[in-house]
């Protein structure tokens, strides 16, 4: 995964975290942990689809904050 994708993902997760009133420090630490873990898991794959990425991020985020994981996974399905 390239840096641009990671940065976009980090920015998006921070927006959701801020909207969900998650303290900034806590949000940053578990977003970083999630992204590191996702990068590690996906580094072995040659092709990564958007759905793969979304699934891995949701799975990792769930360990830290269920609401954030839920919002990240479902925010594009409201309309």
């Amino acid at each position: 995964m390239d840096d641009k994708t990671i940065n976009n993902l980090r920015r998006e997760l921070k927006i959701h975290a801020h909207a969900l009133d998650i303290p900034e420090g806590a949000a940053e630490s578990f977003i970083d942990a999630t992204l590191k873990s996702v990068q590690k898991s996906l580094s072995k794959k040659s092709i990564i689809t958007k759905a793969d990425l979304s699934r891995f991020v949701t799975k990792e985020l769930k360990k830290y904050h269920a609401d954030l994981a839920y919002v990240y996974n479902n925010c594009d399905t409201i309309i």
Partner: protein
Amino acid sequence: MSVLVSVIILFLAMLIQAFMQLSPGIFALFYHYALGKKSRKKADDLSPYYVLGYELFIAAVFFILCIFIFTLDYYSFINFQYLSFALAGIFIAEAFVSLFFYYRKGKTTALFLSRKFASTIEHRAKNIKTKPDAFILGFLSSLPELIFTLPLYLAVIIALLDFTILPRSAVLIFFLLISLMPLFWIFGFYHTDHHFADLLRLRLKLKPVVKTVFFLCFLSLSAIIIFGALNYGR
């Protein structure tokens, strides 16, 4: 049309309007991103412009339809009995459409819209920066639902034909206020320690309820319109 029949039509139309999901969904998404990117104060500042755009669109559609229908009525250009039967047919079709095709399948509250349109609206909702942006988003938000709401507004106006100008205006203003209720409800939801995640879960939980309400209300509306047309000529 008797007053009772008109009142039942108005009540059912208001109920359907209050359960429409597109504009509240867009509003919820817009508010969530405004909260995430800016602050609660900024989100609160932008919200009235969304509401204004949404309300102005409905008012404009009503205004155009009122002029059209009242003119046709004044010059007796139209047989309202036939129009009522046509509307009843449309409502029967909409009852089944809302039951099977209003939402997309699966554990989602995504609506059966063109995906291109939905992603354009989503993109706009996520990137609202100024008040005019919020106003335009509100204005556009009820456009795709016209397939459901346009016949509904027509039925409301026909039900109001026998009323004098004062109750007519009062009912139309009341209808416009009722259409705002879902937006106020979402605004209140965000201000009572609830988040977007709670709202998404609640919308998913209420999905069968919304479909049932639409189905029953559209069918009842159709039945009462047929009753009115057969007994009172419109």
